[in-house]
């Protein structure tokens, strides 16, 4: 198992901090597209799946493939508006940014791989954190 040194971890954390706003914006759009089950107060299973796969993946491409699979599977019509197909492109673009960042940070391919996963976990925390915040705000609005 690759253990990232403190300096690399700091650089990853700094990058996530600096781009937090961009990632949060994506979280807001996830809320707009996927919303949540208001009757059961349950967040979207799609968001939970994205979070789970990002936190458990051993390969960064598994996260990209999850998004591509969801886009490929999504059948849309008048009753089922675009969700993944509307957001997937932006998600893949942000994942590509993370991949590019890992290339900048180290030359060793195995360390880059570990960096990509570390970056992805920071990214998903920002995205899902904002999505959950929007859910909470909506619930508060509903209750007041």
């Amino acid at each position, binding site marked *: *198992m690759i253990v990232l040194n403190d300096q690399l971890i700091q650089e990853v954390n700094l990058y996530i901090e600096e781009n937090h706003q961009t990632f949060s914006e994506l979280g807001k759009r996830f809320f707009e597209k996927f919303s949540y089950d208001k009757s059961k107060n349950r967040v979207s299973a799609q968001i939970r799946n994205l979070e789970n796969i990002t936190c458990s993946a*051993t*390969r960064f491409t598994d996260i*990209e493939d999850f998004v*591509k*699979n969801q886009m*490929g599977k999504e059948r849309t019509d008048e009753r089922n508006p675009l969700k993944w197909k509307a957001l997937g492109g932006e998600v893949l673009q942000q994942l590509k940014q993370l991949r590019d960042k890992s290339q900048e940070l180290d030359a060793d391919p195995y360390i880059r*791989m570990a960096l990509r996963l570390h970056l992805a976990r920071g990214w998903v925390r920002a995205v899902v954190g904002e999505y959950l915040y929007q859910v909470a705000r909506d619930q508060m609005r509903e209750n007041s």
Partner: protein
Amino acid sequence: MRLIDLLSDTVYRDQAVKELHSLVQNAVKFPVETSQIHGLRQIARQQPAKVSEFAGHQKERAERKCEIASETAKLKLEAEIDFWTLVLNLCGAQTSDWSVLKEGHAHLPEELREENIPARQSGMTQEEQRHRNELRKRQREWLNQWTTEHIPVFFQRFCTQCLYRKSLIEMHQPSKE
């Protein structure tokens, strides 16, 4: 982290993206149906050694249909033939620039590399012949093991990329990679 994870995350992903981009960049319809992509993924996962046979069979079927097809149907079938030819090449055809098998050759252990296996020559002693045959046998087994492990991993990437590109073509959107 293992080499297979690294390749899956880099080379296999990049090759799947690149090869499909070349194949469908100007297409108005994806060359094969979703069910065929699922079929390819399933064969690759369950019977990796049969992928070439499966692709060859699909290609022949499309070629037979093409012979009696109308001009408009011919275009679609020709695209399908190109798709299955690509799958065959990606498995290990000698003519392709890159394949799972060629990737295996690049990672062969030192003693099994082509340049370290003596060429067959007249006048070889029995011992030399036995040594050569033994190295060849080990090389074959090593490459068989490689393709058994790597074909499912590569085609997992490839099939996902197919579904993704198909969905984009259906939406008339450019790729975001």
